[in-house]
């Protein structure tokens, strides 16, 4: 279902410019978790960010929402830089527009708080409810929006299953009526049948609330299903970016090819014949620093000028 263009506009909601996030791991060693990232997210789309553990996809999400202070680079939200020094009021305004859903529905909910207070925390901080009654009504509404019921409001997180907890996390994110939600592996910890429920819910909410998503995941089939465009990360850098349809049909970077070829498909005969492609970073021409280039329309690949020429010539017209 990638490549949906119905409610996707050309308006850039988020522009990530040369974003880097380096961590010091010792006196002399530096981990370049995210290294010079550039991409845009359009209003109303779902942007999927995939890659293997340690590639920097979660760090990217966390840097965008300022859970980490970026080492360098800019994140423009509706044209305004959200990185750097900000006043409290500015931060508050920004926090209302951008929310996050976490991977682990167990550690991301405070076990000592009732569901109503977990969900209403943002409402309280931003003063979105006039009185206690309005606050409660709003939480009831949110619970029903995410497929839970109002009776759940007075309970504690441990009384819920993983899927239900993830719904609570989604309700909490929605409480402040954000425009943009970063979902960091929101379904990885859930059972298959529950994953489908949560993905269906996220898609429904996107239509109804006009949301834009950054969907971070390592499960490539689900990412393809939910995303309009996908960026593939490898060692802190984007190696390929294209519409999800295009990326799966016509992967160009050897790492993307190897990643796609490694996914087992629920199809035994296919599995008996599937050939895995190995990625060898040393096969690239080391004499030239690769750049992010547009090989065909809206399809970007990290490549050297020579690789670019080759891909460009082979590209279907």
């Amino acid at each position, binding site marked *: 279902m990638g490549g949906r263009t119905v409610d996707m506009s050309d308006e850039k909601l988020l522009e990530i410019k040369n974003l880097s996030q380096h961590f010091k791991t010792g006196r002399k060693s530096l981990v370049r978790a995210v290294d010079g990232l550039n991409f845009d997210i359009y209003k109303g789309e779902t942007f999927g960010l995939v890659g293997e553990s340690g590639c920097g996809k979660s760090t990217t999400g966390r840097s965008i929402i300022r859970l980490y202070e970026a080492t360098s680079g800019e994140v423009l939200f509706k044209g305004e830089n959200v990185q750097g020094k900000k006043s409290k009021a500015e931060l508050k305004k920004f926090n209302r527009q951008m929310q996050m859903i976490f991977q682990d529905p167990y550690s991301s909910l405070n076990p000592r708080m009732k569901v109503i207070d977990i969900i209403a925390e943002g409402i309280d901080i931003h003063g979105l409810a006039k009185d206690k009654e309005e606050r409660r009504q709003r939480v009831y509404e949110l619970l029903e929006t995410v497929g839970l019921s109002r009776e759940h409001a007075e309970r504690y997180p441990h009384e819920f299953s993983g899927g239900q907890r993830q719904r609570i996390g989604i309700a909490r994110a929605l409480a402040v009526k954000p425009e943009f939600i970063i979902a960091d592996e929101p379904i990885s910890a859930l059972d298959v049948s529950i994953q489908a429920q949560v993905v269906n819910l996220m898609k429904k909410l996107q239509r109804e609330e006009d949301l834009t998503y950054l969907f971070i995941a390592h499960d490539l089939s689900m990412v393809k299903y939910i995303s309009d465009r996908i960026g593939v990360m490898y060692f802190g850098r984007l190696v390929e970016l294209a519409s999800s349809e295009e990326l799966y049909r016509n992967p160009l970077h050897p790492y993307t090819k190897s990643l796609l070829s490694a996914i*087992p498909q629920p199809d035994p005969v296919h599995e008996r014949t599937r050939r895995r492609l190995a990625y060898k970073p040393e096969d690239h021409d080391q004499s030239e620093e690769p750049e992010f280039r547009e090989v065909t329309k809206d399809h970007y690949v990290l490549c050297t000028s020579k690789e670019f020429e080759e891909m460009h010539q082979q590209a279907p017209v």
Partner: protein
Amino acid sequence: MSNETILEVKNLSVSFKTPNGEVQAVRDVSFSVGKGETLAIVGESGSGKSVTTKALMGLLPAPKGYIKNGNILYGDEDFAKLSDKQMTKYRGKDFAMIFQDPMTSLNPTMKVGTQVMEGLRMHRGMNKEEAKKEAVRLLELVRIPDAKARMDQYPHQFSGGMRQRVVIAIALACDPKVLIADEPTTALDVTIQAQILDIMKDIQEEFETSIIFITHDLGVVANVADRVAVMYAGKIVEIGSVDELFYNPKHPYTWGLLGSMPTVDQREEELFAIPGTPPDLLHPPKGDAFAPRNRYALKIDYEEQPPMFQVSETHYAATWLLHENSPDVQPPASVQQRIEEMDGKWEAGQ
């Protein structure tokens, strides 16, 4: 793969005593595993798949968890009747286990080599020199580069994939007849997962090990399994060859599992999700436990537990839909379509 049965589980029921009463985690489960065969057990959390294998290994947390009924037949023994002490003869030797998180099954304070040598010295009575040599061979077998040097390192110096290889090497140390792998690749990246699956398949081919592979990932099942058992609410609801399960599924729960994964060419707006959540096994429902979540449920599903209906010599499913008097119900269109798009050709009655 031969037809020789190495392990047979008959009418196994496992329960847990809790302050609220008896939780019936596994309810009347029967299956067998052939020599050199991989049986995959699929199901969601709480379906009883892990508890079943823990019962096989004699690893139920006593006295809370206990085998209520049934037999686990291996050779001349019935594991269900053996004491914990008697089980030590088999556990880790004839039966070895690999867990999801390799870090929790390795000792962080012990050198990797020592941990591999432990089983060799205990079960196979090797002296230190022999064990050392054999351990290096095992680490090479699971394709750990520079195995000799890695012997002296600690688990934290290994990556997740490398750790899982160590765990496999330890499991192989005593030349097990049955290897139980509980979500061994779930915590790993896809490229690493592929390597581990390859290693396991090579080992199986070489040693004719039987593997019981627990997973919730149907892609992995299609890759590794010869036969598949689908578990729901403590019961096996469908069992058959891997081709039968994927190309000719009969149970609505199996349809739901297949439908809730998007295909590469998924076009529909919505995934075919199974509504609701699994039942509470403290009070298993009367009739078919899946009925409340089953859009094809018949009236009888709420009254009586369906028996296993035979579909073929190797394929069985516990759904009333297979009864001769039941209406003709086909899998949902999205599931039919996805089967049609698969590479495998399947014709009814095959």
